[in-house]
């Protein structure tokens, strides 16, 4: 397995697992800060990764509504865990950001905007659903007439190394949403783990950009052959079969928007805590609120932006109070935005099927189940 000739974009290669370190080193040598999955606080978290051993090697996770458990299964699998609580959103669309500050002295008022250093992140081990989510947030936060400079500064130099899913989690339904378990495009490199726990353990690498292709030059590799491609297809198929959840998306916009008075909304509101966890773990939810602060001397003032959720009362507070007082209307806002009105607003679904909102809802509320329940007793006339 040696680098025989320069790799070309669009080609696929096979790496031995230990060659992955050479890939990480090459990414660092290009000046990127790598962020990837590692085990911390009983979960897979996203943080700085520079060594292969930091990855959740030999771990697996169990995910159900309101339930997440990491377990050691041993063996050599590098990517045996699905997505954790955190998504890449935390790094691109930060939870807290200072927007501007002002200082007053006797002469007057001086305003300043924070200077956002462009970051050079390499996201390593991005799952296909999460790649789709980054794409969706790009369309909202980085495009259009008023792009978000904070998001843009962090997004611009981003390198993405995808880890395709060869097994699916208990709350996953990317296959229903058309976002996974295998990424087709939009990455710099995409890895598919083959035959873990055997002597043939290897990684299929697909190149998706010039930047990604260049990185492979210094990485021991060989061209991919039919057995590897076939196994990657097989592994993808197995992941689809295993998928813990599914969502029927046929006419979902009409189905939900035609059932705004369905009794199920009141039923789910009896269980929903309005805690907001589902929106904050969702990799596409982007809503924020603004807060003003200042010092005792009235010399310093500042405005900050922080993540908010359509589950809080503050989210719709106008003169006279909040608009969505009942939990019923807040849950309905969340689900119809994710699955229906997002199409009107941004041209896609707001859900990529990552399952986080199901796993990390403290009481296990499941939007696939809620949607199915409404569909099962569709209240539109003539049905």
């Amino acid at each position, binding site marked *: 397995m040696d680098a025989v000739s320069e790799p070309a974009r669009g080609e696929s290669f096979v790496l031995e697992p230990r060659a992955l370190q050479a890939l990480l080193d090459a990414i660092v040598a290009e000046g990127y800060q790598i962020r990837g999955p590692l085990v911390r606080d009983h979960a897979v978290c996203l943080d700085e990764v520079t060594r292969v051993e930091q990855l959740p090697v030999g771990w697996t996770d169990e995910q159900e509504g309101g339930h997440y458990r990491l377990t050691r299964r041993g063996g050599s699998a590098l990517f045996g865990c699905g997505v954790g609580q955190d998504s890449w959103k935390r790094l691109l669309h930060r939870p807290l950001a200072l927007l501007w500050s002002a200082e007053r002295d006797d002469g007057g008022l001086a305003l300043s905007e924070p200077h956002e250093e462009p970051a050079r992140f390499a996201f390593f081990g991005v799952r296909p659903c999460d790649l789709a989510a980054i794409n969706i947030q790009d369309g909202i936060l980085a495009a259009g007439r008023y792009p978000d400079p904070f998001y843009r500064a962090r997004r611009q130099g981003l390198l993405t190394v995808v880890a395709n899913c060869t097994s699916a989690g208990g709350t996953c339904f990317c296959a229903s949403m058309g976002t996974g378990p295998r990424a087709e495009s939009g990455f710099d490199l995409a890895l598919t783990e083959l035959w873990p726990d055997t002597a043939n353990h290897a990684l299929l690498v697909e190149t998706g950009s010039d930047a990604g292709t260049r990185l492979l030059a210094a990485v021991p590799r060989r061209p991919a052959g039919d057995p590897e491609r076939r196994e990657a297809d097989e592994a993808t198929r197995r992941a689809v079969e295993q998928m813990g959840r599914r969502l029927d998306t046929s006419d979902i916009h009409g189905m939900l928007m035609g059932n705004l008075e369905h009794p199920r909304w009141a039923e789910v509101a009896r269980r929903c805590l309005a805690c907001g966890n589902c929106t904050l773990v969702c990799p596409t939810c982007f809503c924020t609120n603004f807060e003003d602060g200042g010092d005792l001397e009235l010399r310093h003032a500042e405005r900050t932006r922080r*993540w908010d959720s359509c589950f809080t009362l503050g989210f719709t507070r106008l003169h006279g109070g909040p608009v969505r007082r009942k939990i019923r209307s807040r849950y309905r806002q969340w689900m119809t935005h994710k699955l229906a009105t997002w199409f009107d607003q941004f041209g896609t679904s707001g859900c990529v099927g990552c399952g986080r909102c199901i796993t990390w809802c403290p009481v296990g509320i499941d939007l696939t189940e809620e949607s199915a329940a409404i569909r099962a007793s569709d209240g539109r006339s003539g049905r």
Partner: protein
Amino acid sequence: MPGKKRLAVWKLASCDGCQLSLLDLEDELLRIAGAFEIAYFVEASSATAEGPYDLSLVEGSIATAHQAARIREIRRESRLLVPIGACATAGGIQALRNFRDFGPFATAVYPRPEQLDALETSTPVAAHVPIDFELRGCPINKRQALEVLSALLAGRTPKGGSHSVCIECKLRGTVCVMVARQLPCMGPVTHAGCGALCPAYGRGCYGCYGPMETPNTGSWSGWWQQRGMDEPDLRDVFRTFNAWAEAFREESERHGS
């Protein structure tokens, strides 16, 4: 510039912990003294000045007839009245007596209970007089106290919402202990303000900030009931520092007397 705003800090039935949190603002105390005239704060200084006051912070619940009269005087003397801490905002841990007959407690604890001048109940400030804002917590978060003082001077709304602790927990990036470790965390039904301190140290939230804006305590209990929490435990988790806050009181009463 007009004269400095006059600040008063009062103590009713309480442990002094919230006032200590104020004094713990070590680096800012001089700045607070520069921005306000500290007219009444016995825990900090024995020099006291007469009202009226621009801002009164009140620690403690109303547990005696004397305190009930006192809070009315304080209200009359104060432009803005802000109860601070679980005692002042919910009746405190001492409100546990509200669930029982007071007489036997008094006899059990005091050799001469007839000397006591205590009300049957411990109640929050807002049960007696109108309030302008409140700071939750047992004890309060000193950063929040500073924020209220700064906001008052600037004439703006203090930061922070009445949503769940979970929002702060996610802002901070803590892995959810309820989901990942099956710990009974009260964060989803509890008012934000502490910065989600307990989950960050691997424990469930104890609910010391009291009920959040729309607490669905029934759903929370139902979840834990299905996971084996028994009735006395369910009653007791809601019966701590904020036992007398309406949503927690009602939930605890659903699980026992």
